[in-house]
C-alpha cells in the first residue's frame, strides 16, 4: 500500500501550503487516491473545486497524515471519486452545480444544491444566464406492494431548519429515506471570493450559527497558516475556552431535545436551563451569547476579565451540581431508554467509510477527534479523553454527548487555571499564501481552506461542515425503524442544514 505521504511526493508540491502539504497530481495519481479511498486505507476529509481544478483532502489515520491533492481539469472534467467511494457523491453533485465540473463515470446526474431558482447556471464557473431548465428531480425508486411515500418539508413543524425528507414506508416501517437539501444555500463560496479578511471571517462565523466559534476558529487558523503566523498564547487559550463553552451549550441543548422527541419533556426543561446558563455565562465573559465574531484572524476580539472568569466558574459549579442527577434520570428512566436503546443504529463500517466525525462517529466506534489529529493548540497540553462507544444507536449518541460534557467542563477548568497573560491579538502580516485547518466543533470536524491573494483579500475559501458526512448516514440509521422514531434519530444526529447547504 502506498502511504499518503508517498502519493503527495509523487505529485508537484505547492509551495507554502500549510500546515499540511498540497500537491498537484495527474489523473493517474488521482485514481490511485480513489482506489485507496475505496479500499478504506484513507478517509476523505473534503472534496472541493475552483473553476478549472478539483481538490481533495485526505486522511491516513494509520500514519497520522493529512494531505491535499489537486487535479487540474482545463476541460472541466475529472475522474469521479464517488464512482468508487460513495461519500464523495453529494460533493461531486455540488461541484457540478456550482462550477460545471463534470465527474466522469458518475451515474447520478441529478443536481444537488441547484434547485433551478438562481437564475444562473454554474454560478462559480461559466455563470451561464441562458440555459435549459433542469429536469424534474427524481427521487430514487422503492418498489414493492403496499409501499407508500411520505414527503416532509422543506418547512418543518418545529423551530428547525428547512430540508426535504422523502420516506418510503411499509406500514410503520421505513424502507427508504432520501434527503433533499440545498434550501438554505446562500452562496457563501461566491461571497467569500474577493472579500476582505475581516468580512470573510464574519461570513465564516455565520455558516452554521450553532458552531459560530468553531467556524471562526477554523477560518482564522487557516488564514494564520496561510500567512505563516502565530497567535499569542492568551488568545489560543481564550479560543479554547469559547470552543468548549460552545460544545457545552449545544450538548446540553441536544440531550434535552432528543429526550423531548421521546416525549420526556422534563429532561428538556432541565437541560434547557443549563444551556441558558452557558449562554449567559458566555455573554458575561465574552460579550455575546453565542460568542459570535469573538474569534478573529490574529487572535481574539475581547479579553476575559475577572468578572468573566467568575461567571464561567459559577457556571461550572452549577453544572457539576445539577447535571449528574439528570444523567441518572436519563439512565434510570426505562420508558425513555425504551425509545433510545437500539433505535437508529449506524454500523462501524459505515462511519469509517464516511469518516463521520463527532458523536455520530464516536458512538459507532470511530474515535477521530480533530483536537487530537491533526491536533492544534492548546489541546496537546491539556488532559482530556475522547469517549467512544460501539453500540451506534440513539442512546450511544446521547451518552457520547454526556461524556463530552464532563470533558469540556474539565477542559475549561484547566484552561482557567493557567490562563496565560499577554496580548489578545497580533496584526496580520502582509503576504499571500494557502492554508488549511481542521477544527473540532460540537458536531464534528470543520474543514477550512483559504487562499490569500497578494492584495490581502481572500481569493478563495472553502468551508466544509461535518454534516456532509453525517447526513447520508441518517438515511442508513432510519432504515427498518418506524416513522415515529425519525425525530429521535434526526435529533440524535442534529446535522446542520445551513452548514451543509453553504
Amino acid at each position, binding site marked *: 500500500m502506498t502511504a499518503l505521504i508517498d502519493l503527495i511526493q509523487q505529485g508537484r508540491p505547492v509551495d507554502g501550503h500549510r500546515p499540511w502539504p498540497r500537491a498537484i497530481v495527474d489523473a493517474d495519481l488521482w485514481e490511485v487516491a480513489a482506489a485507496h479511498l475505496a479500499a478504506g486505507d484513507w478517509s476523505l476529509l473534503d472534496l472541493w473545486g475552483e473553476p478549472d481544478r478539483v481538490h481533495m483532502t485526505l486522511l491516513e489515520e494509520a500514519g497520522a497524515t493529512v494531505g491535499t491533492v489537486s487535479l487540474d481539469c482545463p476541460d472541466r472534467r475529472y475522474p469521479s471519486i464517488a464512482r468508487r467511494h460513495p461519500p464523495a457523491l453529494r460533493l461531486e453533485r455540488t461541484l457540478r452545480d456550482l462550477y460545471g465540473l463534470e465527474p466522469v463515470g458518475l451515474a447520478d446526474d441529478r443536481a444537488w444544491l441547484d434547485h433551478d431558482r438562481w437564475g444562473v447556471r454554474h454560478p462559480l464557473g461559466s455563470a451561464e444566464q441562458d440555459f435549459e431548465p433542469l429536469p424534474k428531480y427524481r427521487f430514487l425508486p422503492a418498489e414493492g406492494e403496499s409501499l407508500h411515500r411520505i414527503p416532509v418539508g422543506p418547512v418543518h413543524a418545529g423551530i428547525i431548519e*428547512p430540508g426535504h425528507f422523502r420516506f418510503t414506508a411499509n406500514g410503520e416501517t421505513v424502507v427508504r429515506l432520501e434527503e433533499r437539501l440545498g434550501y438554505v444555500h446562500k452562496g457563501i463560496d461566491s461571497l467569500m471570493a474577493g472579500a476582505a479578511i475581516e468580512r470573510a471571517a464574519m461570513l465564516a462565523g455565520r455558516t452554521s450559527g450553532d458552531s459560530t466559534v468553531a467556524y471562526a476558529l477554523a477560518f482564522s487558523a487557516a488564514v494564520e497558516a496561510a500567512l505563516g503566523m502565530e497567535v499569542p498564547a492568551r488568545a489560543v487559550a481564550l479560543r479554547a475556552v469559547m470552543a468548549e463553552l460552545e460544545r457545552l451549550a449545544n450538548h446540553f441543548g441536544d440531550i434535552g431535545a432528543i429526550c423531548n422527541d421521546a416525549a420526556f419533556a422534563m429532561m428538556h426543561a432541565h437541560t*434547557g436551563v443549563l444551556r441558558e446558563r452557558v449562554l449567559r455565562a458566555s455573554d458575561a465573559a465574552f460579550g455575546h451569547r453565542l460568542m459570535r465574531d469573538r474569534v478573529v484572524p490574529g487572535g481574539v476580539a475581547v479579553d476575559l476579565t475577572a468578572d468573566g472568569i467568575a461567571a464561567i466558574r459559577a457556571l461550572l459549579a452549577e453544572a457539576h451540581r445539577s447535571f449528574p442527577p439528570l444523567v441518572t434520570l436519563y439512565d434510570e428512566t426505562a420508558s425513555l431508554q425504551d425509545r433510545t436503546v437500539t433505535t437508529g443504529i449506524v454500523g462501524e463500517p459505515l462511519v469509517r467509510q464516511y469518516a463521520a466525525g463527532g458523536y455520530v462517529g464516536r458512538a459507532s466506534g470511530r474515535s477521530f477527534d480533530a483536537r487530537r489529529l491533526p491536533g492544534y493548540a492548546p489541546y496537546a497540553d491539556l488532559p482530556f479523553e475522547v469517549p467512544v462507544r460501539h453500540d451506534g444507536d440513539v442512546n450511544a449518541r446521547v451518552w457520547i454527548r454526556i461524556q463530552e460534557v464532563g470533558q469540556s467542563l474539565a477542559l475549561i477548568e484547566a484552561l482557567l487555571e493557567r490562563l496565560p497573560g499577554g496580548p489578545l491579538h497580533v496584526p496580520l502580516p502582509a503576504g499571500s499564501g494557502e492554508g488549511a485547518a481542521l477544527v473540532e466543533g460540537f458536531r464534528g470536524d470543520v474543514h477550512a481552506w483559504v487562499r490569500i491573494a497578494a492584495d490581502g483579500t481572500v481569493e478563495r475559501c472553502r468551508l466544509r461542515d461535518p454534516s456532509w458526512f453525517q447526513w447520508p448516514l441518517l438515511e442508513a440509521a432510519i432504515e427498518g425503524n418506524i416513522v415515529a422514531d425519525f425525530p429521535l434519530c434526526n435529533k440524535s444526529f442534529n446535522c446542520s442544514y445551513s452548514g451543509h447547504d453553504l
Partner: protein
Amino acid sequence: MRKLLLDGLLKRPLTEPAPPPDDAGLAELATRIRRKLGRSLSIREVDAGSCNGCELEIHALNNAFYDLDRFGIRFVASPRHADVLLVTGPVTRNMREALERTWNATPDPKWVVAVGDCALDGGLFAGSYAVEGGVSSVIPVDLHIRGCPPSPTALLQGLLALLEKAERG
C-alpha cells in the same frame, strides 16, 4: 426522578421576574395580547435561509427563564393555526416559494415579524446569486427585530412592539 420532581415542585421557579423595563414589558405584552385577540397568540416560525443562529434564540424563549407560554404566546406546528409568522434569514432563492406558500396558508388576520439582521435586508449575504434579500422582498413585513441573532429579551420586546402596532391598526 422523584427528587427532581419534588425539587421542581418545591423550589422557586427560575422564570425571571425580569428587571425593568422587561418585566413591565412582559406583563404589558400579556394584557395586550388578551385585549387584542381575547385569547392566545400563535406563532409559526419559518427559517427562510438563516444560519440557524436566530432559531437558537427563538428556541430559548421556551426555556424556564423566559417561559413564553405563561403569556399565552405559543409556537404552533402549522401556518393554518398561526396569527404570526416569525421569519428568519436572508430569504434564499431556494426557499422563496416555500415562504410564499406558508404565508398564503396562514389565515387572516396575520402579521409577519422578520427576525435578525439577515431578515431585514439579507445582512452579510445580500448580493449573492442565491439570495433574494430581506423578508420584505418576498412577503409584507409588519415588524423587524434587529440583532445577529436578537437576544430572547429583544425578541420579547419586538413582539410587544408588534402588538402596539396592531392596536393602532
